[in-house]
């Protein structure tokens, strides 16, 4: 959790405060970036861009808002830019799967988590972004719509389809596992 005092010091241009902010948040930023773009190298680029935007935009950050929510929105915006750039160059976007499973810690409920990660991978980028931002990181549909530049209604439709698809995939897996 980032304290309001640390944010205030960052806004005053305190270099050490910025570095402390990075140390506190770099894993979360990378985790969200990776979950959205599903490519380790691209996730690093997204994280770098997000931090630059955060430093430039700290002056406009409203202190009554939760810093983490604002941070997630910045990361999401950068990730969407990266996904759009990827799509513009005709690379496969919808069916891309991570080369290897990226370890996530801690290890409890590992099997369910692995299955969930695989199921998230199989969603289209549009659905995955919405369900990750809403159900993992707690952004509202309105906030997601603002970052993705789509109507709130469209966010809800994507969210509905994404959740249905995830339940289908996880149910299929459980049924297949039961048959073994």
């Amino acid at each position, binding site marked *: 959790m980032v304290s309001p005092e640390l944010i205030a010091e960052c806004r005053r241009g305190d270099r050490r405060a910025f*570095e402390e902010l990075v140390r506190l948040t*770099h894993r979360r930023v990378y985790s969200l970036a990776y979950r959205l773009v599903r490519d380790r190298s691209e996730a690093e680029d997204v994280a770098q861009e997000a931090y630059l935007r955060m430093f430039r935009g700290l002056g406009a950050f409203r202190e009554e808002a939760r810093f983490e929510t604002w941070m997630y929105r910045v990361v999401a915006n950068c990730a969407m830019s990266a996904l759009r750039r990827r799509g513009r160059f005709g690379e496969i976007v919808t069916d891309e799967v991570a080369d290897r499973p990226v370890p996530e810690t801690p290890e409890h409920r590992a099997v369910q*988590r692995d299955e969930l990660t695989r199921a998230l991978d199989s969603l289209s980028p549009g659905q995955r972004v919405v369900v990750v931002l809403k*159900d993992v990181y707690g952004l509202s549909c309105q906030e997601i719509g603002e970052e993705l530049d789509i109507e709130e209604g469209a966010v809800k439709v994507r*969210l509905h389809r994404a*959740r*249905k698809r995830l*339940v289908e995939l996880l149910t299929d897996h459980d049924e297949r596992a039961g048959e073994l």
Partner: protein
Amino acid sequence: MTSAPANCETVAELLPEYAEGGLHPAGPVEVHLASCVRCQTELGRYRDLLGFLNDLCEIEVEVPEGYLEDVLRTARVGVLRARIPSIQDVREVPVRVVSAIRTHGAGVRYALATIGGAAAGATALAIVWWSIGRRAVTGTAA
């Protein structure tokens, strides 16, 4: 007006939002859920899904080697950039002065007049000193 009873197909479409608590428990849906094991099971799956997704927030993905150092370097660049006014900021200064005058009216005009007057006075003094100094030099030279 009474609502028509809900069936599995109707309820199934509502479950992704119902599981979150986003929909108000409607009478027909609850009545159906109370008696339909299949839909109860399906609702349980959605609630489990939302629980798993929520837990994912606390689980961090392993970061690549060197990532923190790269981001700290970015942070230092970010701090420097934040201290240097952008071209846009510099261009906005005259606009902000005019805006301040319009907003605060007499007070700002008085302040600007005072500063301007002081600057003019200092300039005049400097000119007088310079000309006295010149006369002294030319007078000595003659």
